[in-house]
């Protein structure tokens, strides 16, 4: 008799309405009981034609659109776009503005990482660290609101400068926040990182090796979690990052293999500490004298013809902005293309979600920390 | 009619109705759930018969164990949302006739036999202790055998049900 074993596979749609797909992502899981045999991500539920929209908008008006890509780290998106345009126009931004950009960028990085490890804990089932961390996120939002006027979508960093000036009071508040944040982070760290159940759930799960990470175009904390020491702030410094003394945390496989979910998680916690270090140094270095609008171009009529690619380190990894300008009278870009880090991180799901359990898919998805606004753009 | 009679009638109706669902319903999952309630009713009957420990055992083993096992078996072996049973008509006729004949014979037997009823006090006495003593006394050998049987069945079921793919590894 022919020897065949057939078990019924069950196709499950995880999403687009699912609590832990972090937005409107759909994963089509082919499962054998609890074991996932195949996992295919389906994208595009949040596609808003960002890149096409840009082709009919003034350069300055594009910045609010970048806010809405990675809505958890809007500052860094603004910044990446501005770097590209400044590179194209040859603008040298004043030191005060650079300092401000570093401060708000790093603050926003912390806020984004809080979401990342908070919701990761939530996916694993730990509710409390998430809310404890959110208290700190609120404080960051208060600071950023005072600086920019908005709580989430800032439109703060402009081409050639920043939108609004800050005063000494704000700097003091930021300093106070830095001091308060460290013990709060330690609390979350203690609650979650070395919890036996948490380690059991995340260590050795969803291992992305060095080679895999590089070949899939991983960047940011995900890449560093796989043991690759690569951070644009160190390796290809932009803005003032050469001035600051900070470390790049790299995953070492402390609880399991290098590149597992736990490594990707702990990298983010450690990066928050490094960000605080940077902010503290920037607060030391900044001087409040000088005009923030000094180098902001009055209009974009004199845009040079050409193309530019600039990249910066956002909380999710390298955001690359490619802009083609026709120059001359047309003050709109001919083409804008964004290389989004979360998109690359998401593409690995299909490979590493084979043969894991449904709960592991959730853990993996949480650990690569995607933002669908950025994936779909 | 005393209240206990009503209890008996309700339980008997439950058991028989559920038994009919088990046999005649086309969806196998309904049969399984009906079987469960039938077991539950039998547990109630045991209580009426002053067998309290037995009723508990019936609930734990049948309702909590065997029914769940059967439900699992159904869910694992059929396309989950398309569960019907097939039967052929000849089987139905022959089987029905035989069963009816059997029922008639049993009924005749029941009502024509002069049962030797021992009339005793109807007072309820807890029986857990007695059952325990009997198991450790006169019935020690069958008890131990049953333990061995359970062990054998457990191991046997695991070996039979094991996924063959894993044997090769």
């Amino acid at each position, binding site marked *: 008799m022919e020897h065949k074993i057939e078990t019924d596979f069950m196709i499950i749609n995880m999403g687009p309405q699912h609590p832990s797909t972090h937005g409107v992502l759909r994963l089509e899981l082919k499962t054998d009981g609890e074991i996932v045999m195949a996992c295919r991500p389906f994208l595009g539920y949040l596609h808003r034609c960002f890149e096409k929209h840009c082709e009919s908008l003034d350069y300055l008006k594009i910045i609010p659109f970048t806010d809405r890509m990675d809505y958890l780290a809007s500052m860094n998106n603004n910044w990446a776009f501005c770097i590209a345009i400044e590179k194209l126009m040859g603008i040298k931004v004043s030191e005060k503005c650079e300092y401000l950009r570093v401060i708000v960028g790093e603050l926003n990085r912390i806020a984004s990482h809080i979401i990342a490890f908070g919701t990761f804990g939530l996916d694993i089932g730990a509710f409390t660290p998430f809310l404890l961390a959110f208290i700190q996120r609120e404080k960051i939002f208060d600071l950023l609101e005072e600086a920019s006027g908005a709580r989430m979508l800032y439109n703060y960093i402009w081409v050639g400068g920043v939108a609004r000036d800050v005063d000494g009071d704000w700097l003091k508040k930021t300093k106070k926040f830095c001091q308060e944040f460290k013990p709060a982070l330690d609390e979350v760290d203690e609650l979650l990182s070395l919890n036996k159940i948490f380690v059991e759930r995340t260590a050795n799960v969803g291992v992305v090796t060095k080679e895999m990470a590089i070949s899939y175009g991983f960047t940011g904390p995900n890449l560093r979690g796989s043991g690759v020491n690569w951070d644009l702030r160190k390796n290809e410094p932009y803005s003032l990052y050469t001035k600051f003394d900070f470390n790049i945390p790299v995953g070492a496989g402390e609880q399991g293999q290098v590149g597992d979910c736990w490594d990707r998680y702990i990298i983010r916690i450690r990066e928050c500490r490094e960000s605080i270090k940077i902010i503290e140094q920037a607060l030391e270095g900044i001087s409040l004298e000088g005009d923030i609008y000094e180098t902001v171009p009055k209009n974009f009529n004199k845009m040079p013809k050409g193309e530019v690619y600039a990249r910066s380190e956002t909380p999710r990894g390298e955001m690359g902005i490619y802009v083609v300008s026709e120059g001359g009278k047309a003050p709109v870009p001919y083409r804008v293309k964004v290389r989004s880090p979360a998109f690359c991180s998401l593409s690995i799901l299909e490979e590493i979600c084979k043969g894991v359990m449904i709960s592991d898919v959730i853990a993996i998805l949480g650990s690569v920390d995607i933002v669908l606004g950025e994936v779909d753009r | 009619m005393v209240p206990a009679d009503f209890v*008996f009638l309700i339980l008997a109706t439950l*058991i028989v109705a559920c038994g009919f669902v088990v046999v005649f319903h086309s969806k196998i999952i309904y049969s399984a759930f009906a079987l469960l309630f039938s077991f539950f009713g039998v547990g109630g009957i045991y209580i009426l018969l*002053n067998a309290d420990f037995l009723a508990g055992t019936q609930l734990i083993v049948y309702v909590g164990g065997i029914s769940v096992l059967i439900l699992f078996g159904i869910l694992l*072996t059929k396309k989950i949302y398309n569960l019907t*049973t097939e039967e052929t008509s000849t089987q139905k006729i022959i089987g029905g006739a035989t069963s009816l004949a059997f029922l008639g014979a049993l009924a005749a037997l029941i009502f024509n036999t002069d*049962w030797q009823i021992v009339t005793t006090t109807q007072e309820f006495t807890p029986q857990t202790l007695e059952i325990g003593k009997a198991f450790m006394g006169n019935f020690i050998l069958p008890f131990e055998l049953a333990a061995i*049987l359970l062990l054998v069945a457990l191991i046997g079921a695991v070996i039979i049900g094991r996924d063959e793919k894993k044997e090769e590894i």
Partner: protein
Amino acid sequence: MFYNSLEPYLVLSAILFVLGLLAMFTKRNAISILMGVELVLNAACINFVAFSRFVENGISGQLVTIFIIILAASEAAVALAIILHLYRHINSINVDEATQLEG
């Protein structure tokens, strides 16, 4: 009158027994047959307990019933394991399709 006389229990058990028998006769699905067997066993159990209550006034009927329950549990476990195995081989649990003994 019902609950403390023997005959109603015997009638109940007879009906249950016949229903179980019917399931065993007419069903092709192995699990349905297993369910029929369980019904028959339960009918027998009711008989045993009723006799031990009304005829013997002791507990030996209950002891036998406990052994029956033990048997039923192990039987169900083994039977379902076999059914699962069968399903993996012939992708069906109809007993008349399982005509080959080799695996």
